[in-house]
């Protein structure tokens, strides 16, 4: 990165999140660092329970304060997230950073119409009259291509199909022109024909607004469709990071390689899918070395001694692995085209 490089929109340094209870301490995020440039889409992929949602919620400080220990540094725009007062954080939520959840019903209030909810958010953050806010709500529903938007302004969430609800939630999230959109598996519950519509729309809006986006998914096809950069998480750490083409076509970490080969994609029938053996580690008692080592076919003794340092696998492509060369040799040739 040269001296002229523009300042990232998001800078996260050594984020650590653990949940403390009487029985145990769960280390959900264990030293995560990444940046997102303005207008860039970063996809976080990884195993269930690897800390993707916890990382996103940390940026909004949505964890239960009493039971959560957060360490590290997070900056979004000019805001030092961990240093903000609760009041300032409330202003940041929605206006600077907003979030789209996996299940839209958790974000939409069932007793208010779609129009009321969007208008209310606009007024809370930007002031202005109710009439102006309603006009803005209509504009937003148009923007996310909700058919018959005038009628839908007056609809309650349960009166909309899954795809329309998802679009209404995106409209709500965009209502205050955030500079960072956090999207947690926003299309997982949708079927193929509607999912692709929402993805294309999100990508177009993001380009139009110059918004930064962090997008969590476990569908590699979705990542290929929408990401500029991809971060792969395993047991609370980012173990590989790079451009979408580098990570998906030239993976450097054994876990990413395993994820790719276990994805069902035109394999011949009757042949087994190459699954990763074993199961993810217990976050209450992480081993000292690489957390993936017990399941890794490339593992060598030093892997279990200490967590492997991050090594470059290419320009702006890095992986925390001692065996990058061996992994590279195992990537199917066609993927290198």
């Amino acid at each position: 990165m040269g001296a002229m490089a523009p300042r990232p929109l998001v800078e996260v340094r050594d984020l650590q999140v653990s949940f403390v209870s009487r029985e145990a301490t769960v280390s959900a995020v264990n030293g995560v660092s990444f940046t997102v440039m303005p207008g860039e889409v970063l996809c976080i992929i990884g195993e269930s329970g690897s800390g993707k949602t916890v990382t996103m919620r940390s940026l909004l400080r949505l964890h239960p304060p009493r039971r959560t220990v957060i360490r590290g540094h997070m900056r979004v725009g000019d805001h030092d997230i961990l240093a903000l007062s609760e009041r300032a954080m409330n202003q940041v939520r929605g206006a600077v950073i907003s979030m789209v959840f996996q299940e839209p019903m958790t974000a939409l209030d069932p007793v208010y119409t779609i129009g009321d909810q969007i208008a209310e958010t606009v007024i809370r953050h930007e002031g202005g009259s109710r009439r102006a806010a309603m006009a803005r709500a209509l504009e937003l529903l148009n923007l996310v291509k909700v058919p018959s938007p005038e009628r839908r302004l007056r609809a309650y969430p349960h009166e909309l199909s899954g795809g329309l609800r998802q679009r209404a939630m995106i409209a709500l999230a965009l209502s205050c022109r955030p500079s960072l959109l956090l999207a947690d598996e926003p299309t997982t519950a949708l079927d193929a024909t509607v999912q692709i519509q929402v993805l294309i729309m999100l990508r177009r809006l993001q380009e139009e607004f110059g918004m930064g986006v962090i997008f969590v998914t476990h569908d590699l096809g979705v990542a290929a469709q929408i990401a500029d950069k991809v971060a792969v998480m395993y047991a609370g750490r980012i173990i590989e990071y790079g451009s979408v083409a580098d990570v998906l076509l030239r993976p450097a970490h054994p876990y990413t390689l395993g994820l790719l080969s276990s994805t069902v994609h035109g394999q011949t029938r009757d042949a087994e899918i190459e699954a990763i053996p074993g199961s993810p580690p217990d976050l209450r008692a992480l081993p000292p070395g690489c957390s993936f080592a017990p399941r890794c076919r490339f593992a060598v003794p030093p892997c279990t001694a200490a967590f492997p340092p991050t090594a470059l696998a290419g320009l702006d492509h890095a992986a925390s692995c001692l065996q990058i060369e061996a992994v590279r040799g195992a990537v199917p040739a066609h993927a290198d085209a």
Partner: protein
Amino acid sequence: MNTEAQGAAAPMLDQPADRGGRAQPMLIAQGLKRYFPIRGGLLNRRVAEVKAVDDVSFTVLKGETLGVVGESGCGKSTLARLLMHLLVMDAGSLIFDGDPVGTEQGLSLRDLRRNLQMVFQDSYSSLNPRLPIEESIAYSPRVHGMERGQAKRIARELLQRVGLRPEYFGGRYPHELSGGQKQRVNIARALALNPRMLILDEAVSALDKSVEAQVLNLLGELKREFNLTYMFISHDLHVVQYISDRVMVMYLGQVVEFGPVDTIYAQPRHPYTAALLECRLVVDPAGRIDTPPLVGDPPNPINPPSGCRFRTRCPHAETVCERTVPALGAWNGNTAAHLVACHMAHPGSGHSRAAPAPVVH
């Protein structure tokens, strides 16, 4: 099940006998219908109905995997529950291995359950939270008259079989398991009666890719070992292609296309199937889709469009599509193995893209 394969294992219930022989389809569904009433108004009267499953007929052959795809809400889960007789059908009949189900001389519901089991879509909530998983699995064999210790031994064997060590997992409660582990328990539970056929409703959809691969491999092994027939419902078109022998495509409560998996994937004849397949995402950023293959949302199932239900989103819709319901039939007089419900595929239908009607001598 034959005794050789059992070895020294605890004797399971015998797998119900193959009564109809190899050529007899495992299951024949005819004209299945289920409308859900929508109540409202002052007297809470029936004001409308959702035509969730509307005249669906198909067969499942012995030993095959039938994949079922279609948009969310098109009636896949309702269809599965009708087959299981967990929901009463408004019309239609079911023949299981040659025997009508639920009639005087036919198969009783109890016998049907011995033959046909299901893994549910919302498997997170389908295990009893207050029972250790071992007991959840042992429950059905107990209900079917098996002695307690014996049922428990079978439960532990099945746990082992689905890759969960019984000594670690047997006593655990559902909340102590990950999603993939719970799904394995559900599969073990469905196998506890040693059935001949399993309906798997989105059985891998909630899992992440590495666990999904493990469960799919497990399903393949179990199918060979227990000689099972599957009906596999899923949103994931890649998975359906991998696992199915034949595929049934549904749209708004009806079957729109049915045929061998390779034919359907290589030469879809229904415009909905074609659009659905075009929505498949590839793991390569060079293969991004820029324009949606299909726009809009599926219409309201309470008031489906007249004629062909897909016509409101179909790029080829013509007047005939509005007026006449297309029958599910062999396309262009081709083999009966590939069925499609589209006027374009039926000669003489009146659609400008259909072949002319055959000349009858």
